């Protein structure tokens, strides 16, 4: 197990180094932001002077070397827009995004998985149809539309919940549900499919024949075996939640990294975009390791040598 973790760690560092390099070159190939930063009536010479002061005119390889050197020291440079350290800006926004993502994850685990199980237990029942239609809507309706519908219904129409900004549970509900909707629908469908497959197996019939209480059959035997794909999906979906936050955060004026990323891309604020991508990629990689480790706990047959 330890050897596996060490191997995974080395692999992860390689992945992150690759991500850091790719994001740097993609960003810089799209051109620098000198022309949009400076006063719009700036002359060619003034733009050139400004470009030089910012160091945008250095050869790309030199810029990459200084970026890579900084990265090794945990420094990705200063935000071009805010003139403050970019990594600090990203880390400052991370808790808001995590709050949103964990809320959505909670919805996924507490609502989507039980709904999927119940749906699989009574296939083609009214309840199953309801769950499946709900999942279909969740999978097909764009997040933007869902968010606006929530705002119109619960904010503007009923006046129950605030529609913008951060601050306590009430502010969290609408963006959290919006963000979680797509992933929850996916997990719900997967849980249902996985459970249906398990429910048809011989060992479950045996468990039931032994006279075990139905709840024990479902939880200890069926769900336990259906877990693997669900856990994988939940892990990957958590990463999706982090990136899906881009739209949700913009609609609900949520001060997280998604919104920071959108603005930074529009501004060509290179260090901030790099920071967001590297931080998000790190979380994604860590979750994947976590999912792998969880397999061991869930399935005794799995051993990492």
């Amino acid at each position: 197990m330890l050897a596996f973790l060490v191997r995974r760690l080395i692999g992860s560092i390689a992945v992150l180094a690759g991500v850091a390099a790719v994001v740097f070159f993609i960003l810089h190939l799209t051109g620098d932001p000198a022309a949009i930063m400076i006063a719009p009536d700036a002359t060619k010479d003034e733009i050139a002077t400004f470009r030089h002061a910012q160091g945008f005119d250095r050869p790309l390889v030199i810029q990459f070397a200084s970026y890579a050197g900084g990265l090794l020291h945990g420094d990705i440079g200063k935000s071009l827009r805010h003139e403050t350290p970019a990594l600090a800006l990203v880390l400052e926004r991370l808790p808001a995004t995590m709050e949103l993502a964990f809320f959505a994850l909670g919805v996924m685990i507490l609502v989507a998985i039980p709904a999927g199980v119940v749906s699989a237990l009574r296939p083609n029942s009214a309840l199953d149809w309801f769950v499946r239609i709900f999942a279909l809507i969740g999978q097909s309706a764009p997040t933007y539309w869902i968010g606006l519908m929530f705002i119109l219904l619960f904010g503007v129409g009923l006046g129950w919940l605030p529609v913008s900004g951060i601050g306590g549970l009430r502010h969290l509900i609408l963006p959290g549900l919006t963000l979680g909707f797509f992933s929850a629908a996916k997990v719900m469908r997967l849980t249902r499919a996985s459970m249906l497959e398990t429910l048809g197996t011989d060992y479950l019939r045996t468990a039931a024949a032994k006279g075990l209480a139905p709840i024990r059959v479902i939880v200890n035997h069926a769900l336990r075996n259906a877990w693997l794909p669900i856990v994988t999906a939940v892990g990957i979906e958590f990463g999706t939640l982090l990136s899906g936050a881009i739209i949700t955060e913009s609609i609900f004026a949520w001060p997280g990294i998604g919104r920071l990323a959108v603005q930074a891309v529009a501004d060509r604020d290179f260090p901030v975009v790099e920071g967001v991508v590297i931080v998000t990629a790190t979380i994604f990689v860590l979750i994947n390791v976590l999912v792998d480790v969880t397999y061991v706990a869930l399935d005794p047959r799995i051993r990492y040598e």
Partner: protein
Amino acid sequence: MRFRPIALAVALLVSLSALPLRAADLTVTISQGVDADTLSPIRTTNTPTFNVVGQIYEQLAVPEGPGNMSPGLATSWKRIAPTVFEFKLRKNVKFSNGDPFTSDDVRFTVEKIKDPAYKSTQGPYYREVVKIETPDPYTVRFTTATPQALFPALRQRSYIVDAKYWRAHDNGYLEEHPIGTGPYVLKSWRKDEAVELEVNPNYWGPQPPIKHIVFKPIPDAASRVAALRTNESDIITNVPPQYVSTLVSGKTTEMASVKSVRILYIAFNTLQPGPQQNKLVRQALNYALDVPSIIKNVLGGRAYPVPSVIPTNFFGFDPHAAGYTHDVAKAKALLAKAGYPDGKGIDLVLNSPNGRYNRDKEICEAVAGQLALVGVHVTVKTNEWTNYTTQIAKKQVGPMYMLGWGVINYDADGVVTGILTADAPNSAWVNPEFDKTVFAARAELDTTKREALYAKAQAIAHDDAPWLFLFQFEDLYAMSKRITWQPRGDESIVAKLIKPR
């Protein structure tokens, strides 16, 4: 974890009893699309940033209309030689930390902006200034290299910082800890969440009626509208025209609008080969265009046709400017004369930003549709903004591109030298006679003669048709009925003038 659903239910119930109630604490929340970039007023040229720092800092004087400035930190100003401008400063003004405001602060501010090491994007504001003198604490003299009809320091929004305070702190600190002479001081700034301001008790002018101002950025226009309707915001900017009727009929909301200083036009890139290099073609396309119909059908009537290259409420606009009228027959005749009967052989790309201006892409599509009626084939191509502006500055976007341009001092100079003269960063048209005329106007100190020069320049531009002439926008704001407030055409928001109703 089992308690989560219960907690949710409780939260829902609590929220039922907590319907939005606004305490009479006179807090007004303003929602623009983006947060301030910085709270340093001298680093960026971004309008939403200016609107935030503009409550904390002040300018020497504020442009109010053509040739009309209201005093700010300067009480009077005059030209004392063709290249020397003198400002008399307001006495007994203090920064919010107690430092007295003097001519040294003005000099420091301009020198800091011009210092390449500070990387201010406002450098071009002061490009003509070659010398700054401070003969006494309340007098500043600026010398320019050549005579200037307009004084550079009054052309753009330019705020004065506290020299003593700035010398004592590093740039990073100053980005987030503003000290100004203005009516408000900073209480807190949580980036992308809120800038909270409270009234400056030592402000030299009358105390503002609203004690607390919050700038709460909301990027999505539909969400801004929702926030106003739920009383989470009191003033919202850039309202899309499709929400106007909802907001006008709202119990707690109303619209506020003003003719913008910003014009929208479609430039022909005459530096690239193609039919747009032919003047007759450019004229024909202008005749083919039905601008009033676009305003009515795409913008719900919220724009004003501009018959010339200069906005109608600017110094230098020629009220006799003819402008192009919708005349399909004339358009077809001109096309035939140019060698393109029925528009055959003309296939142009019309480049458009996407979401930068109100309904920009839709306007371009309407233009393409109208040009198709005279047989000209136009394809609309949308562009990502940063790349777009960079390529326009390199003259590589063409054969047609849409751009908006706003100058806050209500003077023709910033318009023509920003987007039309051959060396202007956003120009793709060369007409030496036009350039000669507008540069003469820039150096002409006699107002009447200057006006005549702009009339001549407009006639040249009309004939040579560097653009498809479109319109001036109407800026759309919406606000809560709790307050009274008047928007300004220069897109600035002056919080000290907001009043409770």
